[in-house]
């Protein structure tokens, strides 16, 4: 498998965000950074509790799809200076992060709007699937 900078095996570590804010310190044109973290929830389905999610992705398609999402956002939001996205593959347990998004922008309004739109575009377009794992050992595909 070719390495893919938008995918990470297992949960997204909290250090992903702090590392990015360190990089962003050099970029003094941006006055606003906005973050989103998606976490695995302990949903209860038919009396069974979700303990984790197994993510799989069409790795070769993830990169062009994310590049097109970023291009769409940069086209729409003139103040945007940076968009960073990482999504998990493999097992992510309840409470752990499966998706992280950071956008930076000149001012907060475009940062908030672009962040929300970015997450929606990821949900709609990213070729990723999840299998819920339950406490009794059974599984269920989502989608």
């Amino acid at each position, binding site marked *: 498998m070719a390495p893919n900078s938008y995918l990470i095996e297992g949960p997204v570590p909290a250090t992903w965000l702090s590392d990015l804010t360190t990089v962003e310190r050099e970029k003094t044109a941006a006055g606003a950074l906005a973050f989103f973290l*998606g976490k695995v929830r302990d949903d209860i389905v038919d009396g069974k509790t979700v303990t984790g999610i197994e*993510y*799989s*992705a*069409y790795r*070769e*398609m993830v990169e*062009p799809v994310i590049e097109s999402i970023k291009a769409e956002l940069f086209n729409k939001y003139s103040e945007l200076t940076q968009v960073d996205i990482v*999504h998990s593959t493999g097992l992510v347990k309840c409470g752990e992060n*499966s*998706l992280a998004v950071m956008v930076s922008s000149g001012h907060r309004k475009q940062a908030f709007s672009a962040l929300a739109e970015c*997450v929606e575009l*990821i*949900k*709609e*377009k*990213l*070729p*990723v*699937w*999840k*299998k819920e794992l339950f406490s009794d050992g059974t599984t269920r*595909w*989502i*989608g």
Partner: protein
Amino acid sequence: MATVNLIYFGSVTDITGISSERADSPATLDELNEMLKVRYPKLSVISYRFSVNRQLITGNRQLVDGDDIALLPPFAGG
């Protein structure tokens, strides 16, 4: 007739039992879809789309040797 690479994801892999295979395909995507539904009848009861060479396809399309054809159930990232 074209020899293509079929790639399966998500719930489709439960139906096919494998994640990829090479196959002799009819000349068009619609005909390939019909062939796959005969080979894997449960495909008829789930929802999926096709990508050809990592591009989502709506409608029919001619296939050529070496095409990478993926069956994509609804995306569920996040």
